């Protein structure tokens, strides 16, 4: 049966030897949690198009939300490599679960931590770390995906606060969030420098989130539309240190960093499944792994997994030194997600007809990774970011 053999990771280049004891311990604890809590339910959730909400308290108890933020806010205070390993292990289970944690940590807790007032930080971060509040990040709009600076959501200053109007789309956790970070223009509609972040409790009148239906990817994750119709907010709802399009882009860099790691996890899962299958599946009287075509598949997969692992590890070390520039993060997101897509597809094919069943994992990963390829800066946008970095010439 698929998945009955215990997952032990993929480590061809002794990357473990480059990790500290704490980093390995973090990785192991999340891996065990995924094995024990997520793997038994993920197939069913995926088929039913349901986020496994019951797992949130356990995730919070382990400290998975905003784990690289300081302990004074109820977070674990991990370095960025350990944080990346969490994302890797969660996405080994499912991209949707990793997305949930990415949004909560990198797109909700991080902006509050970075742009928020002391009061906002003290109020919101411990609650988000504990999972008693669930956050979402409202940047993308129906007509402004890759170009968020074009957004038309507005925040008008009133006598006693702010009035928000607009529509946000493709919002992970949008319908189950209790609080949203909404980005809106406070000035002229063409002024990207007037973009500011707002903390919007989902209970605020005029705020509605509804699930987007018909997804064939990230089915175990909530993706939503958020409507903001005359949403009144108090003055202190604004993130005081946010300013301009740069602020949400900083958040995206955090999230993309986690995605680069997460993709490695999905790729490891698919490679591992393919390898096990190749040596146990008998066809023409011998394991299919004893054929040149499958060996080449596996050799390619392992090579790409190993490269991706080394890439994110060095990126993590750079991030801990404050040297993970947006372009460096783009390179890792672009490479690793693309590689993971290829690995998932090849694994799916190696698995033959069995590969289309939910009992195996590669096709679920493959379908998920198509979203991951597209969100947080599409693959092509990262090509342009790198192109600009290389040439100094913008081609957007």
């Amino acid at each position: 049966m698929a998945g009955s053999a215990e997952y032990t990771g993929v480590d061809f280049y002794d990357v473990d030897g480059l990790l500290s004891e704490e980093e390995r311990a973090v990785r192991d604890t999340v891996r065990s949690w995924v094995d024990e809590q997520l793997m038994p339910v993920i197939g069913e959730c995926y088929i039913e198009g349901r986020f496994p909400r019951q797992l949130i308290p356990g995730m919070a108890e382990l400290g998975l939300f905003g784990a690289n933020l300081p302990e004074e806010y109820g977070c674990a205070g991990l370095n960025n490599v350990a944080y990346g390993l969490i994302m890797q292990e969660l996405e080994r289970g499912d991209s949707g679960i990793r997305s949930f944690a990415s949004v909560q940590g990198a797109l909700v807790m991080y902006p509050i931590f970075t742009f928020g007032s002391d009061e906002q930080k003290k109020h919101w971060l411990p609650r988000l770390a504990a999972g008693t509040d669930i956050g979402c990040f409202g940047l993308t709009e129906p007509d402004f995906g890759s170009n968020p600076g074009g957004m038309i959501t507005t925040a008008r200053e009133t006598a006693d606060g702010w009035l928000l109007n607009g529509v946000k789309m493709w919002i992970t956790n949008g319908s189950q969030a209790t609080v949203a970070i909404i980005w809106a223009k406070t000035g002229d509609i063409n002024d990207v420098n007037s973009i500011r972040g707002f903390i919007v409790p989902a209970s605020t009148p005029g705020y509605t989130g509804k699930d987007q239906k018909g997804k064939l990817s990230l089915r175990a994750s909530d993706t939503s539309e958020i409507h903001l119709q005359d949403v009144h907010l108090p003055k202190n709802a604004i993130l005081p240190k946010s300013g301009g399009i740069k602020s949400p882009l900083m958040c995206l860099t955090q999230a993309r960093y986690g995605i680069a790691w997460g993709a490695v996890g999905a790729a490891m899962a698919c490679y591992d499944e393919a390898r096990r299958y190749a040596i146990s599946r008998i066809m023409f009287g011998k394991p299919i792994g004893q054929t040149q075509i499958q060996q080449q598949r596996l050799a390619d997969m392992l090579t790409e997994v190993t490269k991706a692992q080394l890439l994110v590890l060095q990126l993590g070390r750079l991030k801990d030194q404050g040297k993970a520039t947006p372009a460096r993060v783009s390179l890792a997101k672009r490479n690793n997600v693309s590689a993971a897509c290829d690995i998932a597809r090849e694994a799916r094919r190696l698995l033959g007809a069995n590969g289309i069943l939910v009992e195996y994992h590669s096709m679920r990963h493959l379908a998920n990774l198509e979203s991951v390829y597209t969100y947080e800066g599409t693959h092509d946008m990262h090509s342009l970011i790198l192109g600009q970095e290389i040439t100094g010439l913008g081609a957007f």
Partner: protein
Amino acid sequence: MANVLAVLEVRNAVLRKGAAELLAAARRIADASGGTVDALICSVGPVSGSDGLGAAGADRVLTAQHAVFANYCPDGMAATVATLTNAYRAVVVAATATGKDLAPRIAARIGAPCAMDVTVVDSRGESIRVVRPVYAGKALQTVDLAGTAVVAVRPGAYAAVPAGKAGTPAVVTVPAFTKRLDVTGIRTSDKAALDVAEARVVISGGRGLGDPKHFALLEELAAAFGGEAAVGASRAVVDAGWAEHGAQVGQTGKTVSPELYIAVGISGAIQHLAGMRTAKVIVAINRDKDAPIFKIADYGIVGDLFEVVPALTAAVRVAKAH
């Protein structure tokens, strides 16, 4: 000369099964050097099932009687054995739940080494040589024990051998001892009258059963064997709460060596194989013909367990009726 003391197990004034097998193991050590084998029974009064111990290999049958032996009393038994051990090269017990509890207590009291779950015993010069599974059966360790040794012999490792010894009765005195642990009784579990570790036939179920209620199919097959079969389970289904942990076969469960092991809907994870690979005959029933279990099964049936198991149950009933 290697004299051996075999400490037998009694529950509710009845000798537990496995005594003759344990005596056979004891004789193996003793006979190599012309030694004798004594059996020890700790009980309140007479014990049924103890008549044939001479025939099974006991030169003498020692009885230690004390009111405290109404229940298992490890402190009293260890203290009693400790007064006797000067005369013996080895103390053997069956590696049952009770035997495994008792053996290290005796060993610590008399300052002797203890070997658990032994599958082969031999006398080797001044040492006792034993073979025992380690890494839950993934490897076999051969160990030499110098001086007096305490050895727990795995049930099923030795078959009873008629030895025609005298079985001369003798009485030993229970010394003064402190009863530190008070065993108050045994609650018989309504379901498993027979434990997987001591059953002649074990029928184990895995995820392939699909639902905990389908264990009933295995219960029926076990019942067809007429009280000599127990139902076991893989770790996956025990962890999922489908079966009690006492039924788990494998590395973090029980290691079993039945004569017949029937694996139903079990793929054969390495930890599971470690727990049952020493079964005499292994039968696997699985719908996936590539399942690893078929690699170590003597006989396999590829197919839907919901068809195969009832058919097998009916066939066993017929065979048993003859």
